[in-house]
């Protein structure tokens, strides 16, 4: 068990250490400085920009940015619907998988466009290779969308008073070519060398020890899994995601996949520091996020390692922890760690079944998605966190007797309105969605694996995962039917784009405001004190919104199990 814990600590420490230089590189990319990859990609990009008639140097204000973002995302969504519904006759379908129903295609397309990857299908039988490739494309561009949106925020915070905040298409393309693509190639190679398939051949077959012949699904898995994690997408090639032996063959690949899903969200924090030349601010954000992460992660690992008391009562040895639903090659500690990392970071890939984790571990996974701001997804993590910063700035500004200001810009009614709408949306989506499902048990409860508190947790988890654009499932929920496909689809759209537009709008409004130089009376927003304030705001808002629902789910289950 000691080695298992050490493995987790090592995984986490290496990620943080690597995130700092990587963040510096990201800041360089977005600042438009020269990088090694320019000679490779510049001519290619320029060609594409020329063909599409986009002037990558034309700067946009925040509204133009958002219009570009929504347009391009809408086109991808339509393309996705088309490919998925017609995959049966489109090329690259060696296994002869059928075309999808409209409601499933709607859900998948949306969920990949919004970087969620709530998979209501199994990759083996549900999609063709062409579909997989298109989904892989979406994994790149949806991550790049989030990163570009975050960079608009960076630029807006950097400018003293300006309308012009860079070009959206340019930001998105360089996110792909300078950051996601090279990193993906690296990660995919490591995976391929460790046994993850990378082929366009159809199903392979093996003869088991019993002598049966079993068909094994293969495909371009290594490439898919690399961007699935680097882009914090989480949509697996196979139905069981990273618990599948070909998607995540051994402890090393487990570490690499873990590393790849945490690296960009972490590096974006440091990139903010380098970009704005406010390193202390980056450390404040990192500190608060890390504290939040540890508060969720440490107890979860502890509970998972301790094992299930109900099973222990039956005389089963719990020496290696609560192993139900976990892979023996990863163990309970690494699985517990993954379950929090993947929910905190909005990846939503799993290497063990969250349905089988301890009740309070399940609560921690839920809380990780309910806060959705400790690290968070590619780019969007910082955007979510920014909303909490605005709320904290407002309250603490009042507490020190000064009209609240952030980085020299006054926070007033309009910004508060936007911040409140974004902050409200998350509980609204989760609670209203779950309430609808709970109100129509005749439709929904047939899909539940478990009755009672756990069944309630399954529904709550599904909507929480959708609203946090996470995409992991409590599994155990039979989710491929019109009810879940359509309701979660709408939750996905709203919960993706409003929390992107909101923070960018605030930043855009702030960028237009007059800059007020700091004085001795200004509250420093890069101090530990302010960090504490942000943490308090996050905890209070999350706790207050979700306490009753958590009580009826995991908390009730926990108390009943003792």
């Amino acid at each position, binding site marked *: 068990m000691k080695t298992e814990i050490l493995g987790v600590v090592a995984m986490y420490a290496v990620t943080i250490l690597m995130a700092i230089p990587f963040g510096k590189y990201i800041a360089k990319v977005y600042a438009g400085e020269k990088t090694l990859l320019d000679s490779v990609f510049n001519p290619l990009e320029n060609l594409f920009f020329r063909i599409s008639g986009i002037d990558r140097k034309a700067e946009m204000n925040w509204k133009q940015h958002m219009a570009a973002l929504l347009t391009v995302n809408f086109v991808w969504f339509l393309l996705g619907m088309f490919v998925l519904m017609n995959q049966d006759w489109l090329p690259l379908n060696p296994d002869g998988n059928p075309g999808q129903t409209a409601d499933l295609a709607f859900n998948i397309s949306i969920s990949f466009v919004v970087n969620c990857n709530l998979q209501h299908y199994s990759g083996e039988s549900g999609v063709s290779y062409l579909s997989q490739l298109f989904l892989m494309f979406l994994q790149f561009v949806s991550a790049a969308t989030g990163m570009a949106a975050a960079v608009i925020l960076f630029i807006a915070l950097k400018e003293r008073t300006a309308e012009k905040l860079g070009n959206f298409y340019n930001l998105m393309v360089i996110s792909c070519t300078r950051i996601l693509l090279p990193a993906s190639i690296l990660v995919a190679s490591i995976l391929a060398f460790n046994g993850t398939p990378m082929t366009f051949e159809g199903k392979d077959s093996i003869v088991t020890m019993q002598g049966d012949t079993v068909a094994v699904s293969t495909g371009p898995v290594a490439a898919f899994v690399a961007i699935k994690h680097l882009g914090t997408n989480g949509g697996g090639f196979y139905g069981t995601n990273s618990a599948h032996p070909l998607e995540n063959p051994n402890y090393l690949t487990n570490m690499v996949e873990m590393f790849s899903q945490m690296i960009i969200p972490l590096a974006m924090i440091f990139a903010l520091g380098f970009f704005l030349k406010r390193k202390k601010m980056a450390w404040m954000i990192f500190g608060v996020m890390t504290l939040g992460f540890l508060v969720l992660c440490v107890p979860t690992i502890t509970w998972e390692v301790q094992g299930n008391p109900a099973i222990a009562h039956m005389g089963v040895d719990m020496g290696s922890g609560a192993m139900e639903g976990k892979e023996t090659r990863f163990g309970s500690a690494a699985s517990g760690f993954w379950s929090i990392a993947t929910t905190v970071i909005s990846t939503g890939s799993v290497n063990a079944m969250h349905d089988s984790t301890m009740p309070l571990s399940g609560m921690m996974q839920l809380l990780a998605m309910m806060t959705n701001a400790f690290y968070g997804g590619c780019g969007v993590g910082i955007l979510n966190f920014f909303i909490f910063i605005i*709320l904290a700035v*407002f309250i*603490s*500004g*009042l*507490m*020190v*007797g*000064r*009209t609240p200001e952030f980085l*020299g810009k006054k*926070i*007033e*009614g309009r*910004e*508060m*309105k936007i911040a*409140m709408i974004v*902050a*409200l949306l998350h*509980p*609204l989506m989760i*609670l*209203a969605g*779950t*309430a609808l499902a*709970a*109100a129509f*048990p005749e439709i929904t409860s047939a899909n539940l694996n478990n009755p*009672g*508190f756990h069944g*309630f947790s399954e529904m709550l988890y599904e909507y929480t995962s959708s609203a946090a654009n996470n995409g992991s499932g409590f599994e155990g929920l039979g989710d491929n039917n019109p009810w879940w496909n359509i309701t979660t689809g709408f939750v996905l759209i709203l919960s993706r784009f409003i929390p992107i537009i909101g923070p960018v709008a605030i930043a855009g409004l702030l960028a237009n405001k007059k800059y*007020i*130089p700091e*004085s*001795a*009376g200004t*509250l*420093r927003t890069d*101090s530990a*004190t*302010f960090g*504490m*304030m942000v943490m*308090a705001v996050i905890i*209070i*808002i999350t*706790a*207050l*919104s979700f*306490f*009753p*629902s958590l*009580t*009826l789910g995991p*908390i*009730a289950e926990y*108390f*009943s199990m*003792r």
Partner: protein
Amino acid sequence: MKNQNASLFQKDLVNEALKQSFIKLNPKVLFRNPVMFTVEVGTFVMFAVCIWILSGNTAQGSFGYNFTIFLILLLTLLFANFAEAIAEARGKAQADSLRKTREETPAKLVVENKQGFSVSTQHVMSAQMKKGDIFICEAGDNIPTDGEIIEGLATIDESAITGESAPVIREAGGDKSSVTGGTKVLSDKIKVMVTTAPGESFLDKMIALVEGASRQKTPNEIALTILLAGFTLVFVIVCVTLKPFADYSNTPITIAAFISLFVCLIPTTIGGLLSAIGIAGMDRALRANVITKSGKAVETAGDIDVLLLDKTGTITIGNRKATHFHAANGIPENHFIKSAVLSSIADETPEGKSILELANATPSTYQIPDPRFIKFTAETRSSGVDFEDIRIRKGAFDSIRSLVTKAGNPFPPEIEGQVKTISSNGGTPLVVSENERVLGVIELQDIIKPGISERFERLRKMGVKTVMVTGDNPLTAKFIAEKAGVDDFIAEARPEDKMNYIKKEQEGGKLVAMMGDGTNDAPALAQADVGVAMNSGTQAAKEAGNMVDLDNDPTKLIEIVEIGKQLLMTRGTLTTFSIANDVAKYFAIIPALFIASIPALQGLNIMRLNSPESAILSAVIFNAVIIPFLIPLALKGVAYKPIGASALLRRNLFIYGLGGILVPFIGIKVIDIVVSIWI
């Protein structure tokens, strides 16, 4: 009258406020406050539930329990209304007492105006006076209404307004031409033009502001209301969705429990006290004898970055005083002193008087035949006296020098050196000459107010930069600025210099406050973010500024800044307190909601409350009574300590954040113990 230390709750004010608490229950009035409005809706629902039970429903619990909840919710509303009403009543009382000073006073209205005082007048009551009317006041008369002196000079007792008993001189022209209704003429005669229509004086405007008729929400209040409305909405979502959740888990929840949960969770504490805090801010300003023209001005004062202060009266005590006589070489000292005194006999300025004081002389000490006094003019920049064939002149260094050198006489080098020494020490040299020969130099010194540098230090810790404005030369100004501890100074300031300085700072994003009295200050007062006009100042200055200081006390700006900060802080800390309270309320109500059907949740009942009913009642009662407990704090404001923003945040987070989490745990437990006696 000034700053009476009356208790917060005077009996007559409380009675008035109690009455208002019920009047304010009108939903139309309450709608302005979204938080309390939702409480009112909840109260109505509970009332309906009570009737429902009376007509035979049995699923919602006993009538007594439901009715109690209804009563407590009603009480919550009344408490919140009372907070607002008592703040209004106090403000009104303060303003009324000022208004009383100008009740019906007979006035001598000038029928047909012409030069001089021998015009026909007619007795009218002050209420009938219109803007532009002219009246005459003589010794012993009360001034009927606000106006500007257009002719004459008088000593006036302003103690009714300022509390200051020493009479002041007001005269036509210049910057001290305003008179205030209710004050009394002690000597001489003045002709005054009415400047404000009845009901439109600053005081009337302020009373309207306090009464709520013209009270607009400040930008900050709007943003806070949005935050609170957001929190209210979150809990609407939480409570509405709880219904299907509970049904799904087969745990029926009564309407009373739902409403109680909702009312406890929404930020009623700050919602109920919000407007009281704003009114109390204006009221505190009024208690400091400052009339504000809007609530926003008080709030802006808290954000001020730069403070422009006049040197005279603010940083230094009144005017310069003569401190030394330096005779020129070869001139007997007593001759020089005698000449200095003679040149100052007719000089009514404080400087002139101080020369006599220093020489220990009176105007009759030296008898001279047939003196002809030469008045000070801006051109000659000197004054003096001629008698027999002697011409004594006293004036600034360069004016006397040009006088002396024009006559072909040398200017003694030792006096020139002395002049420089005096200047660089912050003093003002006045050179005296007799028949175009220099006799010596009189040294005038500024006296810096004791304790003023500590106040500047305090401001610096708040992040406010202080700027001294003076007509002195840069050398003198620098010396005084350093000695007093101001951050910057504007020397040889002309009115447009102030204006330019304000504009420059504002372009850099700073908020600037200044105080002024003269007509030539008016543009700068209007330009400044907070412009405080002295009540003694001209009408133009008073119109231009957004506050009027009745005391004419230039250091008042410092108090105003603190009042503004207090106002924001009180809002912030009570918001934090209110929201932090929810943690304990959750732990009281949530187990109570579910314990009947999910006994395992007893584990969440960490306060070990007696029963579900007592738990809910205790939470609602706590939620109600915390409002009156906090009214004194809302009215007095949270104390401001200039210890730096981060330290202040830590301190307030500790007291109101942590306190806000802990206090209700204790409070609810105690109430539960008491409530369980009956249940």
